[in-house]
């Protein structure tokens, strides 16, 4: 029995050699970049609520050169009637000004940690976050709706106007056509496990055209959770997302994350020995950690540190240690 306990303790210790995938984080700091001429509407220490305007973005900023009388705001970054002061040169000031403004709203509640004109605003969020690897577009917010299972794929024909205002969880992957159509139908965002480079490029080209248009659609963002290859959404993540169904959530780009407030909810926690394969032929498959098995030879004629994993179908496989992740 003692030997058995020792073996278990060793296996648990060895599990800590596996890379960690953190499911949910708290107190994330999110950033909103500002360009010279943009006007922050908040100050450091101020609390903001979801939907509150935090800055005005200048869409048609132009450079001017003019004399500016000395005053308390006559300094780089100060504001005068003509706009924002950039720098003084030969007794005159270079300024940036314009008349077309766009509001930037905070997608979540939090407190302002930094507000630097021309540079950016940083907010410490009050809720929790699921990090992704990249977010395209945004920031945006809407009701969360799980539209497809872990291994699902949402096609353009699967969208309808009833989904307007939602952020959709669409499973393993999505194509550029579905993304473009989702934005046009008023859907606020997409959460997906993988987005191929081609779909990403096509969507970004469409997004750039939209940005240049005078009449803009509501904010829209795509949050990619895992990578560029197709793989099912991790089951612990899907469990958390399913628990958040119908709640107001937000997608932000810096850092890429899904933000939510769920202090009244006990989020499902994964089993401690649950591991997921994040590369190779078995990408996306999940199982139970059994322990290290030492160096093994793998295709390509290379030797890698390997672990034994019992997959959900009951089979036991040796997987390179670098191919697996655990959830905390």
């Amino acid at each position, binding site marked *: 029995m003692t030997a058995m306990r020792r073996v278990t303790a060793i296996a648990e210790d060895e599990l800590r*050699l596996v890379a960690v995938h953190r499911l949910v984080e708290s107190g994330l700091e999110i950033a909103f970049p500002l360009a010279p001429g943009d006007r922050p509407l908040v100050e450091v220490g101020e609390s903001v609520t979801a939907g509150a305007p935090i800055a005005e973005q200048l869409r048609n900023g132009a450079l001017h050169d003019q004399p500016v009388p000395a005053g308390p705001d006559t300094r780089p970054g100060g504001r005068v009637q003509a706009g924002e002061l950039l720098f003084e040169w030969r007794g005159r000031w*270079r300024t940036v000004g314009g008349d077309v403004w766009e509001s930037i709203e905070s997608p979540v509640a939090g407190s302002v940690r930094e507000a630097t004109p021309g540079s950016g605003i940083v907010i410490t969020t009050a809720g929790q976050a699921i990090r992704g690897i990249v977010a395209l577009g945004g920031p945006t917010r809407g009701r969360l709706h799980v539209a497809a299972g872990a291994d699902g794929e949402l096609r353009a024909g699967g969208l309808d106007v009833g989904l307007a205002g939602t952020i959709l969880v669409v499973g393993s992957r999505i194509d550029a056509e579905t993304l473009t159509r989702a934005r046009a139908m008023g859907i606020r965002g997409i959460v997906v496990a993988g987005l191929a480079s*081609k779909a990403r490029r096509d969507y970004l080209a469409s997004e750039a055209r939209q940005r240049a248009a005078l009449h803009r659609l509501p904010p829209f963002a795509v949050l990619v959770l895992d990578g560029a290859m197709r793989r099912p959404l991790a089951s612990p993540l899907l469990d958390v997302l399913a628990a958040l169904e119908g709640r107001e959530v937000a997608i932000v780009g810096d850092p890429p994350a899904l933000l939510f407030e769920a202090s009244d909810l006990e989020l499902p926690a994964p089993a401690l020995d649950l591991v997921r394969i994040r590369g190779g032929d078995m990408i996306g498959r999940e199982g139970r950690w059994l322990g290290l098995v030492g160096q093994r030879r793998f295709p390509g*004629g290379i030797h890698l540190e390997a672990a034994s994993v019992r997959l959900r179908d009951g089979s036991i496989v040796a997987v390179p*240690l*670098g191919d697996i992740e655990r959830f905390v």
Partner: protein
Amino acid sequence: MTTEPRAFLAIDHGAATTSVALIGLVAGAWRLIGSLALPAGAEIDSALHLLRRRVTAVDRDLAHGIGLATEIDSMPRLEVRSRRPRRLTIVAGSERTLSTLIGVAARSGWRVTGASVETTDPLAMTGMLLDRDVDAILTGASDPPAPEERGAIRELAALVAAAATRRPEIPVVLAGGMAEALAEFGLATERPGEIVLAPAARQPGRRRAAAADADPSAPSDPLADLLLELALPDDDPRRAMGTAVQALADALDRRVELIGLGHDASVRASASPAAGGVEGTPKLAVVPGASVAPEEPDDAVIDAVTGWSTLPSDRHRLRDRMRELRIAPSADAAGEGTALRMAAARAALHRLIAAAPDAPGTPSPDLVVTAGGVWSAIPAPAVALALVDILRRPGASQFALDHARLLGPLGAIPDPHERLAVMGDLADDLLAPLGSVVMPAGLHAGRSAGNLLIHADGATSELDLVPGGLELVDLPPGATAVAEFRFRDTVRLGARGRHFAIDVAGGLGGLLVDLRDVPLRLPDRADRRRDLLSAWQRALWAGGDA
């Protein structure tokens, strides 16, 4: 290590791989007892426990002798940690100066963006400088300012000073003629970020700069040194590589070059041993643009990786795989993932050499050491082949691998005498000999370029030298031989000649005689290129075709 410990740990927290090595005092000398390479994110304490179990299982007495059973958690640690390179924004009065400054900064550990007043308006330039992602600003001009800069640098100084007022926390470097504008920045002591005066960048191609680069005892570029110091903290393994390679050169009394390929940046360092009481000065280049897995793989990167790939793949799929390599560098290392890593490593090495090239007249190193997690699972001969595919330098060199990733931690030992002593003890253990490479240049195409006689252990074997091919001679680690080359025509092999006798040392890959073109020429057609690359690799790596 002031309390005379019996063992210590050398830990290199890489961006992709964490390496843990156990160094023990055995018979009065430091020896490498064991090491592990694990995916980044592995908990160090668990790694130490695993290392202890394995060492104890192999040699219980040794483990007891160095206090492994009881002291591993409290052993002294030499730890280094790679961090994501920081961003430097460069602004200059002319495109020519900007280009020079970008070249220097890009090999000094910085991710670089830049603009000159010739092409960028003050609004866009101010936006660049105020970007939240910027960690430091470099503004420079020639010294004295060139004619095309004179009219612009005063206004540029006012612009930079205004941005520096708004971002007081970030350091500003004023290089060359821009130092005259220091007064624009007010009292430097009143801001938390430093204002640093620096010399102008050396103009590439100038005779004085080239001579300094080729002279191993000459100090390196002062601006590059300053930028390296600002970019990387003392415990960064890439910065420590400079001092490590100098200590290795001194310990071995040989000219040493180091090529380190990393997830976030790659390193090229070289050093010559101290001579005549004059200490050697290492040359160090840290190039984020030569990372194995760039953050955003652009078309140039994808094309370069495709060019070295032995597997057919379209651009989009290859870009997907490069993105995955960036996100999870330890994953998918087997099968096709191995081929991808080898192609990405060659492409990164090519970018590294382009960013930090050999100065004309630089002598070939006696020993080329390579390091990096990307090599951790690759067979030794294939590592040597990947290096010589890119390093096309006529001559003979030994190649070795820093297999336990010790150079970073050892280079971070602050006391140079202690560093040299530890390096001297560990040099044999830390270097896995890949073998010797002999690369003649100037061979004429034909059936035979001559022959090679290998004299080893009193016996002689003969080999025909066929231009365009690779010849592999089995010469195990520890063995030495004399390789006698008899070429039909005059070739370059260090010097010009037809008859050469070279002392060669063995290694895991033996002796590799590289009779391919210098520089290497590959077929334009993708399928032929892949076949040729596969054929070369197959000869050195059984099962390497995935």
